[in-house]
């Protein structure tokens, strides 16, 4: 068999291709692999497989939302590995139309936010709040699905935590806008919770990504 036929796409020799359970047992520093079950690229740094080389955004966790819950906590979302994060919620359904708020750790005071927004009918209905119990209506939901995309800045640093997002509701009478806020303390958080403004949510996923430092 010519050499060219064993290095092509149909080759039976596929160096570096494995699964998360069949990684090389005695890797060498700098070795690259691709895990077919997780679709992730990893490099061996001499002591562990490092998945952060894949891209600027690195998937940290994916949580499937259960049945008819009012609050979902993701415990190990933030760490010293990354300074900044992106949270995306998609799929699923709400029991009614409502908003998704974000609460950091167990902190129930000190949330400040403002959103410049307008209804789909063209009426400005800016929203804001000081020293609240969470960042309100960062995302929205109705029976047609859940939607949230927010950047969380410095949650695990001993600094104020900030969020930036586009606030979008998915009812014909809803609003869309952009805004953000901050949390007035310097607590280092590892967890956050999504809390419904009304009703419950079922299904869908909460994905947390870290921005590679």
């Amino acid at each position, binding site marked *: 068999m010519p050499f060219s036929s064993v290095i092509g796409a149909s080759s039976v020799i596929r160096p570096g291709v494995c699964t998360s359970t069949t990684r090389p047992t005695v890797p060498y520093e700098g070795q690259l692999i691709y895990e077919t079950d997780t679709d992730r690229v990893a490099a061996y740094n001499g002591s562990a497989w490092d998945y952060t080389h894949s891209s600027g955004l690195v998937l940290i966790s994916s949580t499937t939302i259960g049945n008819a819950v009012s609050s979902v*906590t993701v415990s190990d979302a933030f760490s010293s590995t990354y300074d900044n994060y992106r949270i995306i919620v998609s799929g699923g359904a709400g029991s009614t139309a409502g908003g998704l708020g974000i609460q950091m750790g167990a902190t129930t005071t000190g949330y400040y936010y403002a959103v410049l927004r307008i209804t789909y009918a*063209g009426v400005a209905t800016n929203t804001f*709040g000081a020293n609240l119990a969470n960042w309100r209506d960062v995302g929205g939901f109705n029976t047609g699905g859940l939607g949230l995309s927010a950047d969380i800045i410095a949650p695990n640093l001993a600094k104020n935590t900030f969020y930036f997002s586009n606030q979008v509701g998915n009812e014909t009478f809803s609003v869309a806008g952009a805004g953000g806020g901050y949390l007035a303390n310097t607590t280092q958080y590892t967890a956050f919770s999504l809390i419904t403004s009304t009703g419950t949510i079922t299904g869908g996923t909460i994905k947390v990504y870290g921005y590679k430092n």
Partner: protein
Amino acid sequence: MTYKVQIDDEVRDATPEEEARILAAQADLVAQEEARQAAIAAKESAKAKLAALGLTEEEVSALLG
């Protein structure tokens, strides 16, 4: 109403403390929605009054958007 909470992959009934946390987070939702609806109603009322004064629809839109 019994609230359900999810901690990572576990779904269960909320403890009294968790329920209080949810209720606190939702506390001013009604006031916020009422304020939003009031703002919409006020704008519609202003549009109607301007129209009654003889302004055209384009002129009202130029003023209020």
